[in-house]
């Protein structure tokens, strides 16, 4: 076979969003020769789309905030299905990770006394989100990108080569992880630009590939979100957890059609925006579930007072966790009380002076003005649910981000467990930083432990990955990858979307079987140089595998919880809270199997942070009886 370009590193990081960059910074700082591989240009990752902020209990705005409160909010938001250990580490370490960004050059908005300002967000008890207007994700990416540059400048001063210890391979797609026996030995991929293949020899691979939104028709996610990391991990023998839980962000744009799904930040509501139906009614007051009833305002007057006096008033129901708001909007539209374009109205124009709106929500003002010709300081926005985030992902060790396969790590959206059945806004950016750093530390320790006995990449594994990648050029029966992708998106959107039923999910699974068969016949035109048809053909395989995980797990979980709503099983079932669903594939088979696995029980000191009354909403009688007596 022809000569293939090869590179050797200690650690490779696949994905250059917040998680990948933070992991790479850590691995390099711990002395690992590190490569970052990304599908897009450096600095374009989907993290730039994050608007609201980074959740961290720094207590700058309300000194009552601390990691315990943040931990409890996170568990509550995830309906107690979270990996409690991840939620604990996340809440404890997030403030340090944010402060560290300032040393890299980040410029957050400030409080009056010059500290990092923090804003309110759905599900967070206190103002907790460090932010820069409504472009916090961009600030995070740029800051980490510039930190990488500064490390490269350091290396240049010391070695003469800026890329001696840390190199970015932009516009490279990894199609297969390579193994030596049970352990990771490297990765195989191609340059998008030239179509040339490339092999990375590396004992540790950190997956930071983000989510799976591109399997759905209406999504806030960019083209990169094709579930690559999820699928690579499965094919390498790792397991996925929580895949049935998909977050539909309540407020995506619904008009014009070409931008349907693009995000409208939750900050609009945090800063005073309200949701109204076509009757002009603030309908969220009708949708406060029992578990949250004593935490949210019952009248518009009280809700409005909360913005200026949060100490003495309950918060408005527009700030319920995302799953609740998304379902409420869905119900209003179904009941015929929707807006002309099929959403509901989100209005900030009657709530804040125009100048204030432009100052606090500059990107939203800009986005609506330029994409929809709507002036949000003068008229309401039309919004509806959009596929935004997958809670599920690679099952990892909470402390090190290590997956089941030796040498494989996963961090950020591609990992699972941290957010349980529903993620709180703002907890994603902090997740990226906390576990990005931990994955860097974990990979370094793993590589250190190997000593000289590194796994090697075999020629056979390279040949097999290469022929798999070239398959779309050899097909004679032509299936168009673009049409297949559209059929998949329509099917997932309609049948495994925000509200699910057994017969519909089964229909989606049947459809997936036919799509899988047709995927093998996909043919692409042209040659290998920057050929988007070919790129999509390869991504399609990953999307199909991940979609099957979502559908199979969704069919098995017979309850409604967080980002999984079953029309035929409404309500949470305490028995199901004790269960995780684990997806895997067997060897070379492309059929997903799902198994039940008991959740680890929470450490008593963490359990003691909740009162018995609250726990009784989530736990079985048996579990409640086993709890220690509450001090009175």
């Amino acid at each position, binding site marked *: 076979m022809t000569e293939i370009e090869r590179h050797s590193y200690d650690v490779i990081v696949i994905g250059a969003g917040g998680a990948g960059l933070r992991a790479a910074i850590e691995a390099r700082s711990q002395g690992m020769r590190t490569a970052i591989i990304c599908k897009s240009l450096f600095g374009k990752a989907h993290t730039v789309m994050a608007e609201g902020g980074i959740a961290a209990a720094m207590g700058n705005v309300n000194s009552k905030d601390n990691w315990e409160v943040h931990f409890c909010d996170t568990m509550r938001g995830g309906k107690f299905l979270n990996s409690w250990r991840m939620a604990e580490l996340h809440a404890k370490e997030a403030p340090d990770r944010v402060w560290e960004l300032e040393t890299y*050059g980040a410029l957050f908005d400030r409080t009056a006394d010059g500290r990092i300002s923090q804003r309110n967000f759905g599900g967070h008890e206190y103002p907790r989100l460090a932010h820069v207007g409504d472009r916090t994700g961009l600030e995070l990416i*740029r800051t980490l990108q510039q930190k990488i540059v500064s490390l490269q*400048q350091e290396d240049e001063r010391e070695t003469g080569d800026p890329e001696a210890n840390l190199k970015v391979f932009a516009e490279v797609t990894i199609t297969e992880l390579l193994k030596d026996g049970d352990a990771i030995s490297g990765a195989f991929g191609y340059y998008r630009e030239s179509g040339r293949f490339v092999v990375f020899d590396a004992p540790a691979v950190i997956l930071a590939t983000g989510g799976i939104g591109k399997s759905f028709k209406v999504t806030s996610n960019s083209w990169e979100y094709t579930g690559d990391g999820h699928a690579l991990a499965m094919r390498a023998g790792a397991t996925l957890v929580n895949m049935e839980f998909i977050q539909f962000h309540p407020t995506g744009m619904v008009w*014009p059609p070409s931008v349907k799904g693009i995000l409208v930040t939750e900050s609009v509501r945090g800063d005073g925006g309200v949701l109204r139906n076509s009757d002009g009614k603030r309908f969220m007051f009708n949708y406060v579930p029992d578990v949250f009833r004593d935490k949210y305002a019952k009248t518009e007057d009280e809700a409005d007072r909360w913005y200026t006096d949060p100490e003495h008033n309950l918060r408005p129901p527009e700030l319920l966790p995302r799953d609740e708001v998304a379902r409420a909007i869905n119900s209003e539209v179904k009941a015929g009380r929707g807006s002309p374009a099929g959403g509901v109205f989100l209005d900030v124009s009657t709530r804040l002076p125009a100048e204030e709106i432009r100052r606090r929500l500059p*990107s939203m003002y800009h986005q609506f003005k330029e994409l929809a010709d709507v002036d949000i300081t003068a008229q309401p926005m039309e919004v509806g649910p959009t596929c935004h985030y997958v809670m599920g992902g690679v099952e990892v060790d909470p402390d090190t981000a290590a997956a089941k396969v030796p040498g494989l790590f996963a961090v950020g959206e591609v990992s699972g467990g941290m957010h349980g059945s529903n993620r709180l806004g703002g907890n994603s950016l902090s997740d990226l930083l906390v576990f990005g750093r931990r994955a860097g530390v974990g990979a370094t320790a793993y590589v250190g432990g190997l000593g000289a006995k590194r796994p090697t990449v075999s020629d056979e594994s390279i040949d097999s990955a290469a022929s798999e990648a070239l398959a779309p050029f050899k097909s004679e029966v032509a299936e168009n990858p673009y049409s297949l992708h559209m059929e998949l998106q329509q099917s997932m959107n309609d049948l495994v979307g925000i509200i699910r039923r057994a017969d519909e999910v089964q229909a989606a699974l049947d459809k997936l079987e036919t799509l899988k068969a047709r995927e093998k016949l996909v043919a692409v035109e042209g040659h290998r140089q920057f050929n988007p048809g070919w790129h999509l053909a390869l991504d399609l395989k990953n999307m199909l595998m991940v979609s099957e995980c979502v559908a199979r797990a969704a069919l098995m979980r017979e309850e409604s919880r967080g980002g999984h709503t079953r029309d035929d099983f409404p309500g949470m079932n305490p028995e199901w809270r004790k269960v995780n669903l684990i997806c895997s594939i067997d060897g070379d088979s492309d059929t997903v199997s799902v198994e039940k696995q008991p959740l680890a029980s929470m450490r008593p000191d963490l359990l003691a942070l909740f009162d018995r009354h609250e726990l009784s909403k989530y736990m079985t009688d048996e579990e409640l009886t086993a709890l220690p007596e509450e001090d009175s």
Partner: protein
Amino acid sequence: MGYDAKFRVWRGDAEGGDFQNYTVEVNEGEVVLDIIHRLQATQAPDLAVRWNCKAGKCGSCSAEINGRPKLMCMARMSTFTPDETITVTPMRTFPVIRDLVTDVSYNYTKARQVPSFAPPANLKPGDYRMAQVDVERSQEFRKCIECFLCQNVCHVIRDHEENKESYSGPRFLMRISELDMHPLDTLDRKEMAQEDHGLGFCNITKCCTEVCPEHIKITDNALIPLKERVADVKYDPMFSVASLFRRNKTN
């Protein structure tokens, strides 16, 4: 509502290429990038184009539409008449890779030449204190999405390949200005702006400001103030008068 539009798209690679004509469906509310995607899905599956967010936030889909540098995701079809032929070409300042995709590595090289943020050595994480009013100036420049349209349109390098070596372009001169205005940065960046990054080449024609999709006032708020500060320590023909005036005042 829907109509068939005439598109002329440049197709080719580093070796050369030409325009190809397409007739393609357009629906209400669409942008140029939607039409390019429709071409991919129906007529030209291997048409190369970069894009990510489709919301004007990532700065990937830069191109020239009827000769004007723009993000394709922010170019609404309603700004054209149905009988207009819409010409889409890659950014001119950077070498073509294929079709609408260009080699923008010049920008990454220049980014690496700007010395990084240098905070005071004894300042601990968590102890940073800055006033909102002081961070706002640099925050404006940090809105930059690195679409490189300002670099593309800057005449110093647009048709002058030979200047690329000594000139970093508006994006990175603005980055220097951003760090210079950072309340806690300790480096003196005036000398390097002039000596290493070619600030003197800029003769403030404001082309960069005009094309900025983030509406950053690159010239007025970043480049001119930087020139003024350089002029305090150095001679620049554009600002000799200003610096004379200032000297008189301080004397």
